[in-house]
């Protein structure tokens, strides 16, 4: 496999920075190994810490988050959070890891990296970023981006994002990704390119698989957002149930003061009610992680759609080219045979202003024949590109499907584990409380 896919937008080469200490020659040899290596990864974020990146193992972590203030483009003061990215290389021999690079980046830089990847790898399902703003909140969580819990979860999400790229067989080898991890001055891309991709158009013969995929991604997005919304509401209600029980604690305690026989039982039962009420905080914090796992796939739906759009764009392009070629051929034929079936401006003006000379006609035919030739070449290469794109894209989509099935199944199982833990805690507390009540 080549380093970069045959992309019509190749002219957008980044600034020619050679990756430090990694010979390109080595890349070719590494390909086979990396393909194997990537296949070894098992499900889940936790295992994606190792990557056969340019023949060395590399560990990536987003280890810290810090509040910063600075001046923005409009010279206004703003507060933002910066995240520390640390890269370690692991020596084969002794398994020790050495810190090779560390730098601070903010969320918008991650966005830029992702935008670049979307543009340069249109057939790849590019991993999503964690949410920009806190959505699907239930009342306890603030929707504030500076909230420590939100920042912490985002830190984990950003690390996850980088690890997913690092373990992707194609994306991991991208130079810009490497630069992102190692060079402070990250180059900037115009995102007008992204806007162009979003333009709408009509495709006559789309590949059915892509149409289905688009439908699937719409369904995925809609069902996950619905699920997350309801989950947030359920969490809110559950919080209410637990917390109200805490009031018993206070009242029981006050009541126990006037009771001789019942006093002790009431007092200790009240204590258990307090324990019960406060247990919900940890329970819901854990559930938040589950919600994040689902959210990642919510955002992945957008990435899937991007791939479908690219296919549509290419297909459209192809169809336009084919149409254009067909019309030119027709014109040519008419000129040669003298029949006029298609409308052309030249033809009309000729009719209106008199016949053209045979020389003029010859010239026109020649031009058309040249254009037809060129068109046929282009069509051929576009066809080739299209087929190549479909092949590559579909390969990545298959890979994505496997990953998604593993991850979602694991997420659902972890949800069950959380519920089990919650139930066990509940049984514990209420058994204790019951004992206190029975001693009253």
């Amino acid at each position, binding site marked *: 496999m080549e380093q970069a896919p045959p992309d019509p937008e190749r002219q957008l080469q980044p600034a020619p920075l050679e990756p430090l200490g990694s010979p390109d020659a080595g890349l070719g040899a590494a390909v086979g190994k990396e393909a194997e290596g990537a296949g070894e990864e098992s499900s889940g974020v936790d295992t994606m810490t190792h990557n056969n990146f340019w023949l060395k193992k590399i560990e990536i972590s987003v280890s810290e988050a810090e509040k910063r203030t600075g001046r923005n483009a409009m010279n206004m003061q703003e507060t933002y959070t910066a995240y520390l990215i640390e890269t370690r290389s692991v020596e084969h021999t002794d398994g020790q890891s050495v810190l090779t690079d560390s730098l601070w980046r903010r969320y918008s830089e991650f966005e830029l990296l992702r935008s670049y990847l979307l543009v340069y790898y249109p057939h790849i399902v590019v991993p999503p970023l964690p949410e920009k703003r806190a959505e699907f909140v239930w009342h306890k969580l603030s929707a504030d981006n500076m909230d420590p819990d939100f920042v912490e979860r985002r830190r984990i999400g950003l690390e996850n994002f980088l690890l997913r790229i690092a373990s992707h067989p194609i994306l991991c080898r991208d130079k810009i990704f490497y630069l992102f991890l190692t060079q402070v001055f990250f180059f900037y891309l115009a995102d007008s390119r992204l806007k162009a991709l979003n333009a709408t158009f009509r495709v006559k013969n789309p590949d059915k698989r892509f149409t289905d995929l688009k439908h699937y991604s719409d369904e995925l997005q809609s*069902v996950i957002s619905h*699920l997350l919304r309801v989950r947030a509401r359920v969490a809110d209600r559950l919080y209410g149930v637990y917390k109200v029980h805490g*009031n018993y604690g206070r009242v029981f305690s006050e009541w126990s*003061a006037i009771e001789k026989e019942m006093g002790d039982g009431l007092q200790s039962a009240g204590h258990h009610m307090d324990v019960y009420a406060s247990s919900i905080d940890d329970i819901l914090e854990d559930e938040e992680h589950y919600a994040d796992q689902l959210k990642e796939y919510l955002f992945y739906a957008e990435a899937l759609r991007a791939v479908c759009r690219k296919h549509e764009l290419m297909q459209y392009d192809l169809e336009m080219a084919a149409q254009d070629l067909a019309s030119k051929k027709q014109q040519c034929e008419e000129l040669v045979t003298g029949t006029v079936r298609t409308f052309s401006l030249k033809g009309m003006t000729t009719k209106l202003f008199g016949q053209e000379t045979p020389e003029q006609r010859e010239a026109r035919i020649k031009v058309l024949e040249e254009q037809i030739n060129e068109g046929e070449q282009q069509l051929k290469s576009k066809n080739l590109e299209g087929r190549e794109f479909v092949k590559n894209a579909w390969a990545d989509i298959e890979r994505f499907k496997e990953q998604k099935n593993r991850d979602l199944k694991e997420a659902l199982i972890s949800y*069950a584990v959380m519920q089990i833990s919650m139930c066990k805690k509940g049984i514990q507390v209420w058994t204790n409380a019951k004992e206190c009540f*029975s001693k009253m």
Partner: protein
Amino acid sequence: MEGERRASQAPSSGLPAGGADGESPGGGAPFPGSSGSSAVLQAEVLDLDEDEDDLEVFSKDASLMDMNSFSPMMPTSPLSMINQIKFEDESDLKDLFITVDEPESHVTTIETFITYRIITKTSRGEFDSSEFEVRRRYQDFLWLKGKLEEAHPTLIIPPLPEKFIVKGMVERFNDDFIETRRKALHKFLNRIADHPTLTFNEDFKIFLTAQAWELSSHKKQGPGLLSRMGQTVRAVASSMRGVKNRPEEFMEMNNFIELFSQKINLIDKISQRIYKEEREYFDEMKEYGPIHILWSASEEDLVDTLKDVASCIDRCCKATEKRMSGLSEALLPVVHEYVLYSEMLMGVMKRRDQIQAELDSKVEALTYKKADTDLLPEEIGKLEDKVECANNALKADWERWKQNMQNDIKLAFTDMAEENIHYYEQCLATWESFLTSQTNLHLEEASEDKP
């Protein structure tokens, strides 16, 4: 007669606590001259009660009744009551069984009201038969309560459910309201039946056995409106003076009642709130499961897992519903009854204080030679007896009430804990079996992959 009773050691419940019976104030003898015009007046007084749109909570009406307790009836000797306390909890000695059921709506041109069927089964001799079936409406219960309070001003009469609950009632009589009330009325009558003194009250007997017309005519007999008004005035006057010499033990009792009332009210609010939150949680959960089913329609490889998750959530949902109904059956009615009881208790304290105040005012009159002092010593003597009786009755009943309260509260909260344990155990089992099935599947798949 009363003096005799105190001297003798009244042995056991076998004695139909004699005097307790003779006391239906004005139940027997109609007040001379009252049958005519005062009967009409009395009916009007009753009409006030018939107005069930009155938003006042019952306890305010009770205070009106308080004023009627100045009948010269003798409260029971405490000794016979103490002996009866020993037997009250032994069900094999229970000889009066009452059920309240079958609420029925009656529509007339003037009003709509509900009646409840009351079935009484008894082996007691003083009852003409062993089984009775009557229909009574809330008004009738109010009447009974009033009579009991009149006859036993310092006994702790069980509370009636509220007349009307303002909050969130769209229809005056929706099913939940009627059912809650029915249960409370059932409790009310059974508590009376279990009370060593009240169980032998004549009005109680009539309430359980008389046909509708018999009851109406019985109700109309009683001290006339004018005399009742007179008593009310005197009572208000004496209570205005305040309680100067409340004995120490009653001070303690009063403190307890005040604190208890605060706490039980708070617990009532908390418990209602928990129920509300659980209900809302249940409503949201109902929507949660089906989304997973919806999702499974787009995922070929995750269909089973998603469907299993959905069914687990649904089962937990059902468990929540069960927990909620347990709460509303075991805890809420008990706590609420004690809220009403705490209001009752305050009424009882007031009545006791009034009786004492009457004595105190006479003593004062004697001391300062305010009025004609010839008859005073004798009156004072009677009042002293009355106060002592009232105090003793209250003391004994207080101990009994406290014991019952402890048992009831303990049981109610133990039940609540039990409901919660059961709920969590059910949910635990559901999710554990899901996990097992997923692990098994995984193992199956893994073994399938092996060559």
